[in-house]
């Protein structure tokens, strides 16, 4: 009995070299379209966003040409007299941001530590939502809150500070704080109160970053510290905080970048004043964003360019702050441990 099996002829002639088959056959046509499309989108976004940066930089040239270095040393913004400078405005911007950071840094740090290490489970998820919601609340709403609800209380604190630490120039207010009928209007609309409202926007941003980094603190080290008899604070001090140092700095810087550029809340709270003063509790200050929002409407072309230059300076500052933040956050070993 014979069965015929059709044997295919040997597929590889023996003479062919034994080189391995190429694994990457190149892109499929669909992938080529996909890659091309994604690249186009990436390039469009690059062009769009890059154009803004270049545009702002380009617009600053005529301003700097006209006003020279006086642009950075002049305090007044008097377009009618052709006296334009951002010295006072920059100082005001930094003051408001610094107040915001002084208030928000400890609160954000403590809140983040509380969420990761202290809070009972039920409160924990609830608090995380609260912080996220806080980030979503529009800044103008914080402005209304700061102006109508916070300010009447905050001026008492401001007066207290000027009464007892008024010898320190930062807390000095040019009025008699001990007067029986004290001049409340000298304490309103100050950099201090604007900073408090801006702090509300800085807290969730900083807290979210810090929480993310605290969460990544190695469990083994935590447990080891616990096993050695550490208290929760001991664990936080010896394991979590040293591990998360980069993230804490990065989160704070990121919040600072946000605080520097804040517009709406500041615009509602402050009353414009163009002088360089360290007295943060005193009425009147000005920030770069508020300056732009207040002056763009009736500006001539050259003044618009001056406003753009002021904006460009602000942008360069926030960009610098954010870049430093990014470096710190990247260093903090984040993003590891997500592979299967």
């Amino acid at each position, binding site marked *: 009995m014979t069965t015929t099996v059709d044997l295919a002829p040997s597929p590889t002639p023996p003479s062919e070299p034994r080189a391995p088959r190429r694994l990457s056959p190149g892109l499929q046509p669909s*992938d080529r379209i*996909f*890659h091309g499309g*994604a*690249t186009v*989108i*990436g*390039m469009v*976004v*690059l062009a*769009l*966003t890059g154009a*803004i940066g270049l*545009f*702002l930089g380009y*617009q600053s040239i005529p301003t700097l040409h006209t006003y020279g270095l006086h642009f950075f040393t002049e305090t007044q913004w008097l377009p009618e007299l052709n006296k334009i400078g951002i010295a006072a405005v920059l100082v005001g911007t930094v003051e408001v941001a610094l107040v915001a950071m002084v208030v928000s840094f400890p*609160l954000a740090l*403590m*809140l983040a530590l*509380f969420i990761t290490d*202290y809070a009972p489970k039920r409160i924990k998820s609830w608090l995380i939502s*609260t*912080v996220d*919601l*806080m980030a*979503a*609340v*529009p*800044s*103008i*709403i914080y402005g*209304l*809150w700061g102006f*109508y*609800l916070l300010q009447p*209380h905050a001026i*008492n*604190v401001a007066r*207290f500070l000027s009464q007892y630490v008024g010898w320190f120039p930062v807390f000095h207010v040019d009025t008699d704080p001990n007067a029986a009928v004290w001049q409340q209007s000298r304490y309103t609309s100050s950099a201090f109160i604007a900073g408090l409202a801006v702090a*509300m926007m800085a*807290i969730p941003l900083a807290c979210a970053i810090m929480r993310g980094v605290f969460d990544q603190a190695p469990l083994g080290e935590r447990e080891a510290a616990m096993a050695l008899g550490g*208290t*929760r604070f001991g664990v936080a001090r010896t394991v979590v905080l040293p591990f998360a140092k980069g993230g804490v700095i990065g989160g704070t810087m990121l919040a600072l*970048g946000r605080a520097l*550029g804040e*517009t*709406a809340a500041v*615009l509602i709270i402050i009353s414009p004043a163009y002088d360089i003063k360290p007295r943060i509790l005193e009425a009147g200050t000005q920030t770069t964003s508020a300056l*732009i929002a207040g002056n763009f409407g009736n500006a001539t072309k050259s003044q618009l360019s001056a*406003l753009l230059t002021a*904006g460009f300076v602000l*942008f360069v500052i*926030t960009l610098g*702050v*954010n*870049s430093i933040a*990014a470096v710190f956050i990247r260093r903090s070993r984040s993003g590891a441990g*997500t*592979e*299967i």
Partner: protein
Amino acid sequence: MTTLYSVPQVDEDDAPPARPRTPRRIRSFTPEDRFAAVGSVLASLALVDVAYLHIFYFSGLLGFLLCWYVAYLVVYGVVVSLANPRPIVVERLVTSTLYLASAVVVLALGSTVVYIFAKGWRALVHVNFFTHDMAGVSPTAPLTQGGILHAIVGTVIEVGIAVAVSVPLGIGTAVYMTEVRGRGSKLVRTVVESMTALPEILAGLFVYVVLIIEFGLSKTGLAVSAAMAVTMVPIIARAGEVALRVVPGGLREASSALGATHWKTVVRVVLPSAAAGLVTATILAIARGIGETAIPLICSGASSFMNTNPVQEPMNSLPLYIYTAYTTHESLAITRAFGAASVLMTMVLVLFVTARFLVRDKKVRR
């Protein structure tokens, strides 16, 4: 039979007294501790009441609370240190401080939400507040006239256009940076990352100078949308990139190993796995866009009439309405501003809850 290993036989009688089966509680907070805490609260309250109000004649609720808290920490620290070693004293004080810090933040947010609604309530109860615009209604008119329909509609249209533009661009950029990884992706990442630092007002000013001054377009809703998109694209791209990056590489490799093309891998595997993160990124951007005040202030005027056409005539929006009503300093206008703020807050809350819901839903299904 020989046993190689001698198993120690434990007699029931020799065994140490039976240990309770429940694990020992390592964080004990005895009734005594509780008494110390409550007692310290009351003691410090009494102390501050006397010192603050009756000796130094200070005024102000905020200062009172602050002093009360400091006094509490001191009293509580002393009480705890009577019976406990230093580490425990520190631990207790830190715990108190952390609880308070969290309470302060929650209280601040809570007071914001409650205050906005409480002040806006008088405007919100009138139906015409939601169904009329402010055309021909003066800021001092009673609340039974006029409304903010034009601002609500304007916000929805402006944000809608901005989202329609920025979501594809943002997510496309994120895909380009993480999946395609073309030659320019590093540059794109750097530029996009730096553009998240762009203050909103500058985006507005940019659009104002380019579109309105240079190209002579009028102040419209579209200009607002364009400026909004400029701020939203980097946010979505950056948050989206993070969401895509945490998709495990194993999933991508598994998909490729099954013969899927890169396109199919991205569309069927990577994007669905990252959906929750992408939705969050989008909602984050919408929440940011919805609250932009500086942009509509610069790129569109505060019109008082209804306008659904984004390319003609100024278009009002909720934040701009709030701001302009605030600048009138008329009490009725400010009540309306708070009413509009409540509506804005409600929109944000709805968006927020939706995002939470979507994220939770995804996690359960996975």
